């Protein structure tokens, strides 16, 4: 794969999970990265480990659901890191609550982080990309939960389905400015927490049931989601916009046929 743009990439939710793994991968590709997270100390710790002679890393604490905070964060990112070439909307929350017990506070919180924030950050970053005249690439981290109906995540599934359509419409509106917008839809990603749960007696059966539904018979490694995001940020994906790239080992194809 070729070099990414020399311009900086803003990553939200960069203190942990896929966001953190992505920031690490970008620095390995000598791409300057701005790590944004509501956990400012966490983002600063990651950025501190990442910054090298080859690529700089900044951290900015911000609540991306708040317009003023987003404006301040993006303004600072542009000022310190220079023209922005990429944005990855990675911040997300995924509480699990049965629909009949779901309260409006939790509903609003999920929609705020998973949908309102990508709207706010995309708008603020795109305005600066347009002012700088260099185009850009934006990647939204969606989920296979936007397509599969899973119990307990009515808010999460709805927020990610809406994010898919935000991706499509912003792709069309920002294309004239040379800005591409795509989404990745990870299936179940194998994080430390998921594997710890799978090691327990209660979690083991659930884990094996889950694996039986995935043709590749395992969970995604964070790096496998990251590599798709990096591809979409790169010049190799120059004709990709408004696309949803599913990264789920075939999970959304349904139960594997017997073999």
């Amino acid at each position, binding site marked *: 794969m070729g070099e990414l743009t020399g311009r900086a990439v803003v990553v939200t939710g960069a203190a942990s999970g896929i966001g953190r793994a992505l920031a690490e991968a970008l620095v390995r590709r000598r791409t300057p990265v701005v790590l944004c997270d509501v956990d400012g100390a966490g983002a600063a710790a990651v950025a501190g480990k990442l910054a090298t002679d080859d690529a700089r890393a900044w951290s900015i604490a911000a609540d991306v659901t708040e317009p003023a905070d987003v404006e301040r964060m993006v303004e600072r990112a542009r000022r310190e890191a220079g023209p922005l070439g990429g944005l990855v909307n990675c911040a997300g929350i995924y509480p699990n609550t049965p629909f009949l017990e779901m309260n409006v506070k939790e509903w609003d919180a999920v929609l705020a982080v998973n949908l309102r924030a990508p709207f706010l950050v995309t708008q603020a970053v795109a305005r600066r990309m347009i002012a700088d005249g260099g185009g850009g690439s934006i990647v939204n981290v969606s989920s296979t939960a936007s397509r599969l109906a899973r119990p307990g995540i009515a808010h999460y599934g709805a927020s990610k389905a809406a994010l898919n359509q935000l991706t499509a419409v912003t792709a069309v509106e920002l*294309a004239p400015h040379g800005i591409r917008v795509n989404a990745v839809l990870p299936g179940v990603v194998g994080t430390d927490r998921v594997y710890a749960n799978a090691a327990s007696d209660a979690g083991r059966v659930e884990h094996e049931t889950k694996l039986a539904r995935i*043709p590749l018979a395992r969970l*995604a490694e964070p*790096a496998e989601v990251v590599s798709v995001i990096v591809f979409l940020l790169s010049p*190799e*994906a*120059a004709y990709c916009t408004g696309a949803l790239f599913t990264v789920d*080992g075939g999970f959304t194809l349904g139960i594997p046929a017997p*073999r």
Partner: protein
Amino acid sequence: MSAVTRVAVVTGAARGIGRATAAALAKNGFAVALVDVRAAELREAAAIVQGAGTATLALEGDVTSFATAQRLAGEVRAAWGRVDVLVNNAGISQPKGLLEISEEEWDRTIDTHLKGAFNWCKAVAPSMLAQRSGRIVNMSSVSAHTGAGTAAVSKSAYCAAKAGILGLTRGLAKELAPHVTVNAVCPGLIATDLTAGMIAREGPDNLVRTIPLARLGTPEDIAQVVVFLATVTPCFMTGEVLDVDGGQWVN
């Protein structure tokens, strides 16, 4: 021969997306077998691909023939011992709609796209399963989703063949998992020999207006996505359908 470590087969490699894909795979270090029914253009393409410095084979043959696919896949294995990547790209345009098309033309369209992909999967998948690794990338089209436009180079028979390829992709993703991945790419409007006549007829400006990125795609745009699917390691994508259309479909 000792230098050959990764082997790719590309069907329909004499021109357009197939030729660009063969070249891009060669640039990424693959030995590439180019398969096509057009002998003269095939030799020309193979010579260009060889310029990237890797081994190539030019294999003349029609993908609609099951026996030919078996024989040519055997030649690739005889030369290089394995097949790591198969790109089912061979296709023809079919501008005739239901009322104009003959039974023979319908069969030829389905046979080239869909049976051709089946023939080559059948020819290489057993050896991929035996070596416990392999990547298959099938060329579909945004037409599989849209039914094509009135200006499209190809109408319902082409759309049906390309939609069939999506079903084949999803089914094989399950049958060949977990060691062999099978994915599809759906190009939008790509400037190739296949589309040149239609693009001239409709006027490039009129067509570009329907594409948010405001340009026709190039064979290289598609080749880069194929190379990504063929090389990204490890790979958690299988049964996936990647649209590469400049935003045309969602617009």
